[in-house]
């Protein structure tokens, strides 16, 4: 039983797994760099001008990277890109959304704690952004390990 029927045994990535990798790498790379730069430049003397410019640049870079990589992935296999999600992909999506919602909830609670502790608006906004990015990383990461068969 090792002829043509088994030629495709290796499990190459589906389009949705590629999308999850794109999201994971883009969120991790772009916003990881954003928070590192923000951390290094952390000084009240910089003010909010730098941070807003940095945030806009990060968002712009994120959109460009995700769009470009998604287009490339879709061009490689247009049929798979246009196909609706199947039952396993929908299940993985639901579970990853649930995991992401817990992460986002934690981010919101930390933001509320920051408000109670008297953090300024700039810091509060970034704590909230960090929660949002962490939630998206958890979602994409959950999808990746699920697609790889690590999670059932």
């Amino acid at each position, binding site marked *: 039983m090792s002829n043509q029927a088994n030629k495709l045994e290796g499990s190459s990535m589906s389009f949705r797994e590629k999308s999850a990798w794109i999201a994971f790498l883009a969120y991790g790379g772009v916003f990881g760099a954003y928070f590192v730069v923000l951390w290094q430049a952390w000084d009240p003397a910089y003010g909010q001008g730098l941070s807003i410019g940095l945030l806009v640049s990060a968002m712009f870079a994120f959109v460009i990277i995700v769009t470009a990589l998604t287009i490339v992935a879709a061009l490689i296999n247009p049929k798979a890109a246009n196909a609706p999600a*199947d039952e396993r992909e929908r299940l993985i999506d639901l579970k990853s959304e649930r995991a992401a919602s817990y992460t986002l909830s934690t981010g919101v609670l930390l933001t509320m704690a920051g408000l109670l502790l008297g953090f300024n608006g700039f810091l509060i906004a970034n704590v909230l952004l960090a929660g949002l990015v962490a939630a998206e990383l958890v979602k994409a990461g959950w999808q990746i390990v699920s697609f790889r068969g690590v999670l059932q």
Partner: protein
Amino acid sequence: MPIENEIRRLRFENGEMTQQALAERVGVTRQTIIAIEHNKYSPSLEAAFRIANAFGVPLEQVFRWKSD
């Protein structure tokens, strides 16, 4: 997973049907067929019937409960 299957054998017996060909007949991705075949994902009842139908056999010839 408590469910075993004979998909690999049935593919072989059906003209060495590829996973992609089976996936297209069932309406799922090839990766989902791989996950089912390797007992990493239990399909819905509908998908299970579609798989059996693709091979032209009853459901119980494709899937069976794995007793301890």
